[in-house]
């Protein structure tokens, strides 16, 4: 009788079949955008085109055609390399967060690689290094790492996004109050934000979550991530509102008898938003970074087992990048793909948010960035 090791199951990664096409599209977009940027900024384009492409509204022409608007808008978008790259990365992350089953090669938590398998002519046991059927390898329980990473996107980025939204609320609220009424309150708010700025966010999150207990759930992580780190936003909003209040249009509007509500809605907020959006993207990347470092240190969302169990044996229920990172330090030399792959996922997400934020700043505010 002859024993036959099972061959790995067939995988359905449709996008891997077209990966060369996808990579080609991305490279083409980036090259096109670099060429466009050089073309727009250096070579003598017609002055009209350059003004339009750089977004300098020197003349107001009513009723621009749809074609003209879309062409100039497209050139402006495509000539911003970091915005193009950041948007592509964020688009991928969004797809992975909303429809992970469309991207993932296997089902969630499927311990498909549990058994001995014949992979490229060698017999292999569960922690299988990256190989064609498992592009990022498998973990100890035989789960495909790529699948786990794709399914973990939703929770990780959702947590980071929620924490950033709370930070934004605190920062904009306090900064708005401090900037709008320049009184004793604003001094106190600014000193509070200086205190908050001097606390390392990672340390605070670690202390907060460990002392309350990571098994308490979502709220602890949210508060631990959100209670520090809003100081930059406060200072930004405060400075921006101070600047806006000194502008002539505010004086004019006030002279005409606008109410404070109307002033804020009509004048302050539209001028604040272009600075706020990039800051939001950068803040999102900072929150993701803290989440990554917390996961690396073993503070993991959705952990069910008591912490007396060695970290590498803990069962993490929720699919999350930080959970995949945790406990992987001791596996660094024997199974380097286990910590490296989720870390790369974090890196790509952080890079995407940063590029998007920087690109957005150039896109919304072409005067200041140049």
């Amino acid at each position, binding site marked *: 009788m002859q024993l036959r090791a099972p061959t790995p199951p067939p995988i359905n990664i449709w996008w891997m079949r077209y990966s060369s096409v996808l990579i080609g599209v991305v490279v083409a977009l980036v090259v096109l955008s670099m060429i466009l940027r050089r073309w727009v900024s250096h070579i003598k384009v017609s002055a009209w085109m350059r003004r339009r492409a750089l977004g300098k509204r020197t003349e107001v022409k009513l009723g621009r055609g749809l074609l003209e608007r879309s062409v100039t808008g497209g050139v402006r978008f495509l000539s911003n390399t970091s915005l193009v790259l950041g948007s592509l990365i964020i688009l991928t992350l969004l797809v992975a967060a909303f429809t992970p089953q469309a991207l993932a090669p296997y089902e969630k938590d499927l311990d498909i690689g549990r058994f001995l398998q014949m992979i490229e002519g060698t017999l292999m046991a569960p922690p299988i290094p990256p190989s064609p059927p498992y592009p990022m390898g498998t973990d100890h329980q035989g789960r495909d790492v790529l699948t786990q990473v794709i399914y973990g996107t939703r929770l990780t980025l959702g947590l980071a996004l929620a924490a950033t939204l709370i930070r934004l609320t605190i920062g904009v609220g306090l900064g708005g109050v401090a900037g709008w009424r320049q009184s004793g309150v604003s001094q106190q708010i600014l000193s509070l934000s*200086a205190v908050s*700025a*001097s606390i*390392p*966010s*990672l*340390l605070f999150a*670690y*202390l907060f979550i*460990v*002392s309350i207990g990571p098994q308490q759930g979502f709220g602890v992580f949210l508060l631990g991530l959100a209670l520090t780190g809003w100081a930059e936003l406060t200072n930004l909003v405060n400075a921006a509102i101070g600047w806006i209040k000194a502008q002539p249009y505010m004086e004019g509007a006030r002279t005409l008898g606008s109410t404070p509500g109307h002033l804020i809605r009509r004048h302050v907020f539209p001028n604040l938003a272009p600075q706020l959006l990039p800051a939001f993207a950068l803040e999102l*990347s900072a929150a993701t*970074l803290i989440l*990554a*470092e917390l996961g*690396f*240190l073993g503070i993991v969302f959705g952990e069910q087992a008591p*912490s007396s169990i060695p970290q590498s044996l803990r069962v993490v229920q929720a699919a999350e990048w930080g959970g995949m990172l945790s406990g992987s*330090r001791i596996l*660094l*030399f024997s199974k*380097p793909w286990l*910590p*490296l792959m989720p*870390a*790369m996922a*974090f*890196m790509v997400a*952080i*890079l995407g948010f*940063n590029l998007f934020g920087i690109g957005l700043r150039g896109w919304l505010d072409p005067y200041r960035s140049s």
Partner: protein
Amino acid sequence: MLLLLTSVAVGSLVGVGLGLISGLRPGSKLAGAASYVSFLGVLTPSFLLGIIVLLAFVRYISPAFGVRFVLLDPTVGIIDPRRLLAPALVLSVRPMAFMTQVTIGALQEVIHRDYVRTAYAKGLRYPTVLWRHILPNIALPMLTALNSSFFFALSSIFVIEWLFNWSGVGFYLLESVLARDSLLASYLLVSIAVTLLLINTLIKLAIRQIDKRITEVDAVVS
């Protein structure tokens, strides 16, 4: 703490050097490369870099130079360069990138100022202009950036000490928090805070020495 000081020192020196080289020749290929690298360096998670450097050191660099496996061994002395090099390298990347960016930014403002042009017009040589007119004027933003660099390095020192098994303040702090040793944790927190305050005060004093006009130092450093 030794790790912190070493890394920030290395990082700021290399960063200022890189920034000077690339900022004084805007538009050159080196300047472009430096700005890209510093952009990447500011946003790379320090633990990912730590993993890569650790792997590289253990797998390739240490065998290549015939160094024993001492990187993670806590019994080897702290000042041993074989242990200090790798974590200091990882920690110094972020201050380095940040200092490079700040230096480039400050130089871009300064080298087109009128007094620099006047100095050239007077017939002064390039080194003289550099030392007498350009460098003193970018010292202020650099010192401010040095302050922030310490903060950057401090916020990632916990992860790096933990990764490299370095028995420093950050490592003990994490351990004491996990062990619910609140007394040790608070002592360590206070010591970190005191160190930061000390550094902050020194930098403020230096700024006041450089620019005597500034009375509200807090408005500059924050």
